[in-house]
């Protein structure tokens, strides 16, 4: 194909490409510029170029540093626990039983709840020490003298994690269930004929096959949980050491009105997410390559 012919093929796509670059890259470029500026909205007189000051502040501010730690712990715990629970549910749903479709739909429901509504539900309907379901259940089980823990005050980060695990388990279950359904059944039958125990089948056939799906779930989950804001904002208002990076950025932007520093923190979060996303894309492309090689079994 000549160069002209190649361009003739590309030309109709160019407007779309330019548009995509404009709407996705320009805001980020603006954020990069603002992150190098001294800009506090309540102090309009003092605005100017700050160099790397904001980035230095981001990495030296103990609140932001602890937010990085909180983000890592929150993300890791939520993703790993949801993966394990999701795997268990997927293995159960992989069997044939009456009402499987209904059960599957009900299990997916938490993932379809609006995040902020789910957080409100957990804060008031479940955790509240006075009228929450958990303490109500304790009273119902053990009578009047039952312990009435203040869930959010006593275990703030766990409280946030629990609500997120509830939301993300169905997501993991969906991915792993798709993986299980695409398992080559003939190999499993052959293994059974050869006298393999269910555990051996799981350990040597199912798990290796699921590895990529587990990786995919972990990476996609990480990208979204790293950015979670609703649960932290609603359940604890970022108090009690639960402020993660998105919440810290929000606080810097909205309460300190420090646009420069908030942009710098935002850029740092984006860079971190890009690193994770790069791995995610690799996994996805390897899955797609495999699909092209083996075809899908019906």
């Amino acid at each position, binding site marked *: 194909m000549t160069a002209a012919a190649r361009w003739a093929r590309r030309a109709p796509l160019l407007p779309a490409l330019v548009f995509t670059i404009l709407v996705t890259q320009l805001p980020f470029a603006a954020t990069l510029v603002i992150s190098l500026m001294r800009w506090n909205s309540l102090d309009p007189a003092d605005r100017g170029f700050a160099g790397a000051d904001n980035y230095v502040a981001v990495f030296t501010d103990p609140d932001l540093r602890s937010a990085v730690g909180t983000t890592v712990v929150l993300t890791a715990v939520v993703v790993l626990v949801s993966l394990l629970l999701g795997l268990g549910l997927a293995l159960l749903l992989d069997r044939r039983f009456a009402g499987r479709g209904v059960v599957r739909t009900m299990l997916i429901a938490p993932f379809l709840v609006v995040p*902020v509504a789910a957080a409100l539900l957990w804060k008031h309907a479940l955790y509240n020490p006075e009228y929450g379901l958990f303490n109500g259940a304790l009273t119902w089980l053990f009578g009047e003298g039952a312990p009435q823990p203040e869930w959010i005050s006593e275990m703030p980060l766990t409280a946030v994690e629990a609500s997120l695990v509830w939301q993300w388990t169905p997501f993991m279950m969906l991915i792993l269930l*798709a993986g299980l359904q695409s398992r080559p059944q003939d190999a499993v039958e052959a293994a059974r004929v050869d006298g393999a125990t269910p555990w051996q089948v799981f350990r040597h056939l199912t798990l290796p096959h699921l590895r990529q799906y587990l990786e995919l779930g972990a990476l996609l989950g990480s990208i979204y949980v790293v950015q979670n804001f609703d649960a932290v904002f609603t359940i604890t208002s970022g108090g009690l050491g639960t402020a993660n990076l998105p919440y810290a950025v929000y606080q810097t932007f909205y309460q300190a009105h420090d646009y420069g520093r908030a942009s710098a923190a935002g850029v740092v979060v984006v860079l971190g997410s890009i690193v994770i996303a790069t791995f995610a894309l690799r996994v996805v492309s390897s899955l797609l390559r495999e699909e092209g090689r083996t075809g899908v079994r019906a």
Partner: protein
Amino acid sequence: MKSLRYGGLLAAVLMATTACAGAGGGGGTGENSINVLMVNNPQMQDLQKLAADNFTKDTGITVNFTVLPENDVRDKISQDFSSQAGQYDVATISNYETPIYARNGWLTPLDDHVAEDTAFDQGDILEPIRRSLTAADGKVYAQPFYGESSFLMYRKDVLDAQGITVPERPTWQQVADIAARVDGAQPGMKGICLRGQPGWGQLMAPLTTVVNTFGGTWFTEDWQARVNAPEFKQATEFYVNLVRAHGEAGAPQAGFAECLNNMTQGKVAMWYDATVAAGLLEAADSPVRGKLGFAQAPVVRTDSSAWLYTWAFGIQKASKKADNAWKFVSWASGKGYEELVGKSLGWSRVPDGKRRSTYQRPEYLAASGSFAAQAEAAIAGAKPDDPGVQARPAAGIQFVGIPEFTDLGTRVSQGISAAIAGSTTVDEALAEGQRLAEAVAAKHRGN
């Protein structure tokens, strides 16, 4: 079941998880409509209900309300006003923001409107409130919707049964003793409700009044931070210990709304908070109506410690509809609106604490007589320029009137809220607070 195709599944998963929720903004941009951003307090919700059938009917001006919780509303307002985006014509701002916003040139001065609109009767506004909404240039930049101070509310029936009387001006030590005695007076009833939810406008407001009367201050007159000074520490420890020993359940997440709920449901015997709560507790459908007593804000070393606060309507400088916006402000802050609320919703729900005439209405006094005198005295006696035992660098009783205070107060309150939860100590929280306050003070010393 047919197995799913990976590609399709992946696409579906990605689509589902990237669905993002945009934040809704003001609606109409029509010539005869204005956008109003308000805090979601009950009085504002009443205003929202009454606007269409009264204001819009009389003037033909449609009002699009956006109503948000206190913390969020402040953030959104400062966002919109600082960029002068003009998305909202009118917003509820307080006596904290008004002088700061006015200095930055974000608000329309209202003096001309006030002069033309004689029915509004500016002279009727209570003096401390009017002064707190006047900027350094002597112009008025906002009109109060309601004004408030702080005082002590208590269940008179519960205390009477225990043979306890509360003095007209109690000390904090007396309040702590009473809280200990009435803790558990009824099944599930705690001694006192004090805010513990992080936020400069939540936990930090009542706590700063306690700090003032214990002799503490955030800053000295020459901008030295005093957050870890003995008086500040003593006040904070007193507050934290009182909440931990005899305070409400779930204190680290309890703000004004949660305490109101606790008091109404009989979960607490006392509550130190905004005077505006009294009208809600004495409302016709309140289970504790008629069972309440009221006393001035508790003190230690000062004569009074009551705060001064007002939610007021300011008009954004960038608004292209300032005349229509003023019509709305004049209606909402006027005498006629108080009458309208009194007649249609009940006199206990009148947005009070801003006009002298409110306290001369027989119908209002019949409904709010139990606390009207105490509330008016608290507001009239508030001294934002001299709230403690030492001179201050900036005005404000339960806050410091500087732009940095929203962030500083909120960050410090997170440590103190954690101390109430028991996951840190007051010493640690205040050491961190001093570090943050010192950074702010250094900036002001440099100016």
